[in-house]
């Protein structure tokens, strides 16, 4: 059976294609080293437009106004430039009310595209540009630790990692957040109280990596000016032990938190990247897999939510669960030695 994959790896090759939403200008070259927050490409946003009623402004019929318009399509105009006129005894003129580009002229009207600020594309991970995608972006590669999560607030930043948990089940509380954490990326466990999140925003942090959080805090988390990502889910869930080990052993290192919203269609997930040196090229992790014995898996639903273990058997047929549903399943040996039968649909393969 095809398996869902989550990458949680202490050392791997990480390769990410970063693309603009629309064609634009790529600012980097192959071989260039970039930081996660570097701008690698820019594009024009979807601009606003302004329709100028030239005929009405001049007080002439549309056909006549068309012959009087002095600007052509594609022409840049500045605020106050004369578009048409003067005409008549009162020397009527029509001027541009703001800077822009003439995009259409006709029937006594002129359509102006107003200039807007460029949209920037950030590198997303620190690394080396290994390929360019013409007019759209680049492929960036690095080596290091990779921890993928399941929810993010669509922010990106990097800083040194401050570990404020002593076990995967710890709760992060506001009293743990003081000025010494300002500007750092904090690794918390479960964050359960609104006051804790507000304290993190007030400092502010540069990033917050959590095991879990109540869903009622989502609106506030979306307003935070720094990335917040959840590794394991909503509610009170412990941090999965694989991620916990990797992150706690990288305390004080610079970490990049790319808390992108999970987009299953495009394959974009929130993730933590910790750039680490390697003496040799490590293969990039597989993107697809099928369930097989010996795999490290994580359980995504109750009971045993967020716990990791080893897949020790694939059950024949479709076992019946306490809820009464029956489904293809496997036996997972948890870290405490206990064995549980779990629907394969509730498992993520960790690799």
């Amino acid at each position, binding site marked *: 059976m095809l398996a869902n994959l989550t990458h949680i790896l202490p050392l791997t090759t990480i390769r990410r294609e970063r693309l603009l939403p629309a064609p634009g200008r790529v600012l980097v070259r192959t071989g260039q080293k970039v930081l996660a927050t570097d701008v690698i490409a820019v594009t024009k946003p979807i601009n606003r437009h302004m329709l100028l009623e030239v005929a009405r402004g001049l007080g002439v019929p549309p056909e006549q106004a068309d012959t009087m318009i002095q600007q052509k399509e594609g022409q840049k105009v500045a605020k106050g430039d004369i578009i048409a006129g003067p005409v008549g005894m009162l020397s009527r003129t029509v001027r541009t009310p703001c800077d822009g580009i003439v995009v259409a002229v006709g029937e006594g009207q002129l359509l102006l595209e107003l200039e807007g600020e460029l949209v920037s594309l950030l590198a997303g991970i620190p690394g080396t540009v290994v390929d360019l995608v013409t007019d759209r972006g680049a492929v960036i590669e690095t080596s290091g630790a990779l921890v993928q999560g399941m929810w993010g607030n669509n922010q990106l930043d990097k800083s040194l990692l401050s570990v404020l948990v002593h076990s995967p089940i710890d709760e992060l509380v506001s009293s743990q957040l003081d000025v010494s954490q300002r500007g750092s990326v904090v690794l918390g466990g479960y964050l359960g109280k609104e006051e804790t999140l507000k304290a993190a925003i007030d400092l502010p942090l540069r990033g917050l990596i959590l095991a879990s959080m109540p*869903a009622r805090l989502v609106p506030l988390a979306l307003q935070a000016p720094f990335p917040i990502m959840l590794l394991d889910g909503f509610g009170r869930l412990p941090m999965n032990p694989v991620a916990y080990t990797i992150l706690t052993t990288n305390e004080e290192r610079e970490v990049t938190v790319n808390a992108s919203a999970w987009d299953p*269609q495009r394959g974009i997930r929130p993730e933590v990247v910790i750039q680490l040196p390697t003496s040799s090229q490590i293969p990039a992790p597989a993107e697809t897999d099928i369930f097989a014995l010996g795999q490290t898996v994580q359980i995504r639903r109750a009971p045993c939510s967020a716990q990791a273990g080893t897949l020790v058997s694939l059950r024949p047929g479709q076992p019946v669960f306490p809820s009464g549903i029956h489904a293809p399943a496997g036996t997972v040996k948890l870290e405490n030695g206990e064995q549980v039968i779990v629907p394969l649909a509730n498992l993520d393969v960790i690799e």
Partner: protein
Amino acid sequence: MNSPRTEIESLLAIDVGSVNTRAVLFDVAAERYHFVAAGLAPSTADAPYKDIGEGTRAALEDLQRITGRTLVGKDERVILPGHPDGSGVDAMVLSMSAGPLLNVVAVGLLQDVSLESAQRLAASSYTRLAESIWLNDHRKAETQIDAIIQARPDILIVAGGTDHGANKSIANLMEVVGLACYLTPVENRPILMYAGNQELAGRIKEQFDVMTTVRLAPNIRPDFDLEDLSPAQICLAEIVNQIRGARVAGVSDLAVQSGGYTLPTANAFGRVIRFLSRIYDQNKGVLGVDLGATATTVAAAFGGKLALHVNRPLGMGAGIEGLLDPAQVAEISRWLSIALPEDDLLDYMHQKIAYPASLPVTPEELAIEQAIARQALRVAIRGIPRGLVEPVHPDGAGLSAPFEPILATGAVLTQAPTQGQSMLMLLDALQPVGVTTLVLDQNHLAPALGLAAGINTLLPVQILESGAFLNLGTVISPICSADPGTPIVRFRLVYSDGTEATAEVKQGSLHVLPLARNQTAQLYLEPLHHTDLGFGRAGRGVKITGGALGAVIDGRGRPIRLAGDPSERQEQHKKWLWALGG
């Protein structure tokens, strides 16, 4: 070498959902079509595969394992047509609900006439209404242009003007649409679907053909008082197929193998519901509900006239997003048979959105899923046009139109651990009135039958008659405002051997009539305390046939009155489930 068979006997139907891909096999046995088996695998339209081919191959492998038949050749393609040795199939059809929702901008003349029709048309497929423009839209022209561009439409649906009616107003609207198209980069320009005044169709095609693809459809509002979406729905379904085929790898290849018998799942589902409405009681309609992971489709048809509504996002996976509003969460909470704080319910809903394929292992999680399913269906039936179905209650609770049967599909309904759970979810959510039959499409065959009807009209009829669908039972739902516990109906069930069973049904209760599966009996009902039985004269009696749960009298009234106290309410839910066998 085997020579291919020319007649269509075996048919393979592939249905690609957002969570699961199904491969369903039909074949002839004893000179009649039968459902043979269904293979199932996770869908692979999303990353990392981004190709529906992988999930389809896995579903076909599962089907081959179950049936022992060879359906796929060494070239990894379906063997078409079938061979005398039993390998391959004679025909193949493809339906698909997976893939991104397509952005639609609806354009119409009058906001509550042609624009509404355009919006209803958009809602008949897997689209997201991103923007609407109409004649009396008070925004400036440039603001409308910007709104269209920023909506990033995949499809522009333009309606308006009765045939031989207004054309200057449409021409004015099309200026805005034209400028927006012109200003959109060529590679991103939407397909323009024109379904307005047919006198203008040629001129609009000529005007826009140079900029983008134009598809002309019959006027969806040929007269002011007449809406006819059906022909345009076919056109829209083709456009949706075309765009998704270009965006999701593997679709085009399977569409070629299916010889063009490809439809969005909702349209294929709607087609079979319309088909059923022509062959069942013409005085009643047929209702179909497909509760999927991302979208919930409601199809209601009366005598061949179909209302199709794809509610999106609304479902049991990513579609839970459509139920995150606090008022909806509170409603879901009222359908819970367990004590659960709303915060915990919200946590569960967010977790399920992230892991849409995951399954409830504990009884508590199952209770949550089934409560969500009830609310998703209740929201979905509100999308049926009011002209077609007037609800009993202003909040949309309860269907007043007589539907016979109600066909339901979707894993949460069809794979529920007990048939009582399936029936109670449907009764709670749809709250039918009068007499109806609840039928479960356990293998999600309906879309395949809708498509198969285009190849062989005999196949869907024989499959429907073959018992491939599960008849849960006939339900009689009287309406009465008496106090709970008051007798509202006295029934007498006369079996074919002349024996009888009699009892009273009390307000607020569910009563299962003692009727074995496929056993027929005459049911005589005597209304008490001004009870409205919802059908003809009481003394005449109705002939009923037992389903999997026999037959049921739902004496809970419409709308169902849930207790205000949470623990009392939970007891109500448990009691009702016990009445249906647990």
